[in-house]
């Protein structure tokens, strides 16, 4: 059964900009799908349509076999943004508990779940800290714990590691894969790093800009679980090359290749 079904989705913003045109995409349960493309290709817009944070101008998004709106109301997904969007006035523990409060969990159940989440993202001992006392990487781990706290079937991530340094990003990539495998959820992941998309995903969706379209679907057949050695696998480089070429064919001339660490001679 599909976790996400997108059929015939278009999005036209006020002023006439066409962000997305006629998108069809099926994401199976348990997949880790990355959306990659140049800025302006509508990848974040597509993610927000899946989450019913914005409405498509045409077509429909279905999540867990229900309309996206119903899925949102049923708390079917958790979301992580590029900024951690933590509430400064709440401690780490109370940030993680926020969605649980809104869902009406009682105090005992909340605090038990928060403990589990702190273990999952390896932040035990920081529960009483305030967000500004943590590093960027730790803040993003809190944000992931908050998104996973109510055990959603789907995790939507909008360039979650885009603002972090390369080393932190690689470490969190590894942690994210561990969490994904432990939780068995489906992940839709927006990025503009080729290396990140290939390393994490079971499938990469390459998008092109103006108007936003899907230009290629690339299954990533690297062995699981992925480790540091995966990044040195010749197959990793073949797939990264395939993604890069698809980006170029799609007119993705302004893709920030320099940020991927794989761009030698590519421009």
């Amino acid at each position, binding site marked *: 059964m599909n976790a996400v079904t997108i059929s015939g989705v278009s999005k036209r913003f006020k002023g006439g900009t066409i962000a997305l045109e006629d998108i069809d995409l099926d994401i199976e349960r348990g997949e880790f799908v990355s959306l990659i493309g140049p800025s302006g290709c509508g990848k974040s817009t597509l993610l927000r349509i899946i989450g019913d*944070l914005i409405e498509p101008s045409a077509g429909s998004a279905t999540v867990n076999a229900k309309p996206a709106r119903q899925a949102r109301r049923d708390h079917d997904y958790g979301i992580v*943004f590029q*900024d951690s969007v933590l*509430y*400064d*006035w709440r401690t780490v523990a109370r940030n993680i508990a926020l969605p649980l*409060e*809104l869902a009406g969990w009682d105090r005992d159940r909340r605090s038990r779940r928060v403990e589990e989440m702190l273990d999952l993202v390896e932040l035990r001992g920081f529960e009483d800290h305030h967000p*500004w006392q943590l590093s960027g990487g730790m803040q993003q781990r809190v944000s992931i714990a908050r998104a996973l706290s109510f055990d959603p079937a789907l995790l939507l991530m909008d360039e979650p590691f885009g603002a972090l340094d390369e080393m932190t990003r690689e470490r969190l990539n590894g942690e994210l894969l561990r969490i994904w495998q432990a939780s068995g959820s489906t992940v839709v992941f927006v990025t503009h790093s080729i290396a990140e998309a290939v390393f994490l995903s079971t499938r990469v969706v390459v998008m092109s800009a103006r108007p936003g379209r899907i230009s290629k679907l690339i299954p990533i057949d690297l062995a699981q679980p992925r480790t540091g050695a995966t990044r040195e696998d010749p197959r990793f480089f073949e797939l990264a090359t395939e993604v890069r070429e698809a980006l170029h064919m799609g007119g993705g001339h302004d893709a920030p290749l320099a940020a991927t660490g794989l761009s030698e001679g590519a421009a």
Partner: protein
Amino acid sequence: MLGILWGLWEGLRALGIHYGWQRPFPIDETTMPHIHDMIGALFQRPNPEAPLLVVTLLRAARFTAKEAALGFAMGATGGFILGALLAHSRMLQRGLLPYVVASQTVPILAIAPMVVVWLASIHVTAWISVAVISAYLTFFPVVISTLRGLHAADHRAIELMRSYAANRWTVLWKLRFPTSLPFLFSALRISATASIVGAIIGELPSSVSGGLGGAILNFAQYYSFQPQNLWATNIVAAALGITFFLVIVAAEKLVVRRAPEHVA
């Protein structure tokens, strides 16, 4: 800092008297009394039957503080409710905000006697009328800051709330209100001192004589004989304002938990 101000005052006074300066105003014993005389006056009796001046003034300050505290509470509560209503509806904001702004352009001295007359006609005690006048001066910064603070939440924080299918009330209570607190407290700090000013001004036309306003009127009449008494009253009034201000600062420290660089 206090020492520097003291030095400036006494220095200017000494030079002014020595050279007979007439600008910016004639400087003499009456226009610029010694600071130690002002403070000394606090511990003297204005006339032989009266208690020490400081005792009289502290009683007056307590009375004015009561008016100001009630006025501040009414103004802050009313201002917050009005600000929240305006933040809730753009239409209300367009319709009402100009009048809220206009209310502050009307001189408080013109409003005060009317408030006293209106409230006296429905048998409200005079000091409560003074509190209402103080509230009038207090609510405005709170309205503006509440309005701004409630709209200050990051758009992604709002998207996050939307992703949890949170209703409007939950978004207000769990996100918009906490986000607005630093804004609200900057307004409360201004309002706290304004409430004292409002209470003192309110006392003047309402024939309430037990407060600092009454004391100021009284000592102003005797200024040419005993200038240090009015100055001493000013010191007590300023101290009361500073006390109110510090109470708000302390409350803010207790309530607002934010990154240091975010403090508004």
